[in-house]
């Protein structure tokens, strides 16, 4: 069965390594913080200016001056630090953040990503996404395999204005885990109960399928 958003977040959380600094985008990526594996310590950076972001505040204790990049009220962990936006993007651009997880509207088989604009229809802006994808060594895209109209979001070539070129290394969707290399999506894992045929049908871009495709262990 295809995963829901929490399932995707849970699978992505398995990619975390002890001691990493991690930037989570808005949407599914934010949920990753709920599934940190036992024995793994990571610290969350939010690009508006905090390192060591904690959970939402207890009802009644929210502080208008303490928010994350999604403008949500948050708390700070012990050992947190606040800083300005230039310092925040110095961390990102300087590759001090070990993992970036973000959503996308489209990903192409050469690692391009589009997630900020639909010409003539919607422009919210790129926020920090262009800095993140241009700089991070390790980018995971978290998204549904197809859009609401049922059209594949894993393409030969992106049709929307790009956020970054050739930067995505891994995509984790409701159907599969895929690596991007040699101009193709390489299938690595299937969501529990999802068949290779279903994944093939949902993927517009070139999909390389090895002999053995294990199911995700959640």
């Amino acid at each position, binding site marked *: 069965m295809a995963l829901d958003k929490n399932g995707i977040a849970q699978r992505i959380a398995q990619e975390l390594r002890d001691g990493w600094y991690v930037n989570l985008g808005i949407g599914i990526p934010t949920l990753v913080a709920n599934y940190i594996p036992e024995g793994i310590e990571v610290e969350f950076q*939010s*690009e*508006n*200016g*905090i390192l060591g972001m904690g*959970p*939402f*505040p*207890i*009802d*009644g*204790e*929210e*502080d*208008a*001056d*303490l*928010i*994350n*990049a*999604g*403008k*949500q*009220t*948050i708390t*700070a962990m012990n050992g947190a630090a*606040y*800083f*300005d*936006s*230039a310092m*925040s*993007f110095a961390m*990102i*651009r300087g590759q001090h953040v070990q993992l970036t997880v973000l959503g996308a509207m489209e990903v192409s088989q050469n690692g*391009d990503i589009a997630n*900020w*604009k639909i010409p*003539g229809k*919607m*422009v*919210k*802006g*790129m*926020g*920090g*996404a*262009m*800095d993140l994808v*241009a*700089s991070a060594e390790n980018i995971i895209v978290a998204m549904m395999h197809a859009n609401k109209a049922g059209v594949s979001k894993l393409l030969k070539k992106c049709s929307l*204005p*790009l*956020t*970054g*070129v*050739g930067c995505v290394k891994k995509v984790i969707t409701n159907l599969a885990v895929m690596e991007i290399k040699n101009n193709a999506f390489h299938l690595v894992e299937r969501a529990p109960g999802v068949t290779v045929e279903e994944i093939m049908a949902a993927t517009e871009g070139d999909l390389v399928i090895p002999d053995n495709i294990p199911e995700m262990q959640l």
Partner: protein
Amino acid sequence: MNKVVKNPVEALEGLQDDMTLMMGGFGLCGIPENSIAEMVRMGVSGLTCISNNAGVDDFGLGLLLQGKQIKKMISSYVGENDEFERQMLSGELEVDLIPQGSLAERCRAGGAGIPAFYTPAGYGTEVAEGKEVREFNGKPHILESALTADFAIVKAWRGDTEGNLIFKATARNFNPMMAMAGKITVAEVEELLPAGSLNPNEIHTPGIFIQRIFQGETFEKRIEQRTVRQK
């Protein structure tokens, strides 16, 4: 070196139609509320606003958009604002969208006398159109230029009569870099103290960047996304 002015009226003296402004804040967090209210009252128009966001419909820079006082926005993210989207899609409002890190660094550069720098952000996208591309360490970068403004208007938690500022938590965001990049920089603060009250080791923005400072009368500090958990 007393920089104290009585109120936003005095603080914004000289602010005219068609000027370029920097406005601190991220979303509704750390925005100069009192100065925005005064700009609405003044009715100044044709403004170019450099601000990471555009507020919401009825608060922050959204108030200036409602009054059609803004000609152009230079921002990184402008979601959550219907009136903004309407003005942009209809062509009433010019919008220059730039990556958030490049926006922060371009403001800092403007204040720091760095006319231009190279960054990888935006390479291969619309943002790179018309900009020089150069490879460093095998990776393409684009040349971004400094931003400055006629007025930079920032909001701090505590300030002193010399213009030294301390921000609170994530309300710091763009305020320190914008403070550096204004020809005239106005700071509105929650608490204005005599020189010597702030620990010189804890100051985020040294007073040299500030020309005028005042204590805001009230701060609503509206929350955009109230997210909580139960005890």
